[in-house]
């Protein structure tokens, strides 16, 4: 246990190596975005490019975990930390797009009623649909 922690610390102790791994990981993620966009165009898909990239990455990680543990470890070591950082601070990344709401003031003044009703209604119904069906069909391992 002690030994394991030591290894973990010595690895994390190289800031340059860590930054390099992060840079390579980011580059790999960008490659997945580009491949996703290419797939979208060449197969005439209606899925957004990054979503295709998401599915590809998940698929490759799962396949590698099964058939090629070394490649899986390498891929997750490079993509994992930078990926977690990006996901944790995703809120910052969509601010520029979200600020676009200031150009939509007119619409919100006119259509606030359908916005409020549709938001409340659809959230309530979808929450209930997912929760109830999952409870109905999930294995009963934990029943409070």
């Amino acid at each position, binding site marked *: 246990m002690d030994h394991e922690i030591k290894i973990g610390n010595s690895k994390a102790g190289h800031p340059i190596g860590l930054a390099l791994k992060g840079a390579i990981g980011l580059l790999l993620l960008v490659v997945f975005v580009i491949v996703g966009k290419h797939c979208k165009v060449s197969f005439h898909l209606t899925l957004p490019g990054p979503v295709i990239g998401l599915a590809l*990455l998940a698929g490759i990680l799962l396949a590698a975990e099964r058939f090629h543990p070394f490649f899986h470890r390498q891929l997750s070591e490079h993509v994992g930390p930078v990926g977690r950082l990006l996901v944790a601070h995703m809120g910052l990344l969509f601010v520029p797009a979200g600020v676009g709401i200031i150009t939509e003031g007119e*619409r919100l003044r006119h259509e606030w009623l359908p916005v409020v009703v549709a938001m409340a209604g659809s959230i309530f119904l979808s929450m209930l649909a997912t929760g109830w*069906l999952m409870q109905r069909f999930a294995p009963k391992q934990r029943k409070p």
Partner: protein
Amino acid sequence: MSVHSFLISALWTGITIACYLIGLGCKRISRNNALANPALITIVLVSVLLITTHTPYTTYFRATWVLTFLLGPATVALGIPLAKNFTHIRQSLLGVGVGLVAGSVVSMVSGALLVRLFHGSNELAVSLMPKAVTTPIAMSVAEEIGGVPALTATLAIVGGILTAITVKATLTFFRVEHEHAVGLAAGTAGSGIAASHVAAMGDGPAAFAAIGIGLNGLVTALLAPMLASWL
């Protein structure tokens, strides 16, 4: 890129990051209250700054291209937790499959129909359809089906907050107490914001919330173009 436009970029990107840090501070001070959402606080602060300095939105949007560019890799990175939690999906495949697709379709269809019922515009209906999924995916889906991405982004954040606040009480009231079901419902209806809220319940709900975010992103992106052309 000229020196001038580089400075403008650095200035607005820096201001956005500073506002985000203020947002993170608010979240910490309020002890992770869902209402103190860092992204929403940042959007409000930056909007106020743009309006008071009479800066056109297009200038700001062009200046902060770095942040927007990183959204793509961040979306791809959502595949990592999805792959990690795959064993959970396999163990309760039927529940996850049925619950997720139903929640996704119900969210899109009821959202669009309610907008129509209350005489909202077609643009509003398609902008509201993908609002349950994680914001970057919601925005690109909205673009795909003729909605307004900025509107979708704001609705997605507000929807996530609404889900985070109400999910436990609502589901308990309707006797849905299975922890995995609560997690999956939170992730499906309210994406990351609601997920981080139920993550406090434990590892099980957190894993199923992560599954809900990733899979609902995929399902919504697949089904939204079809449903949008029907409704």
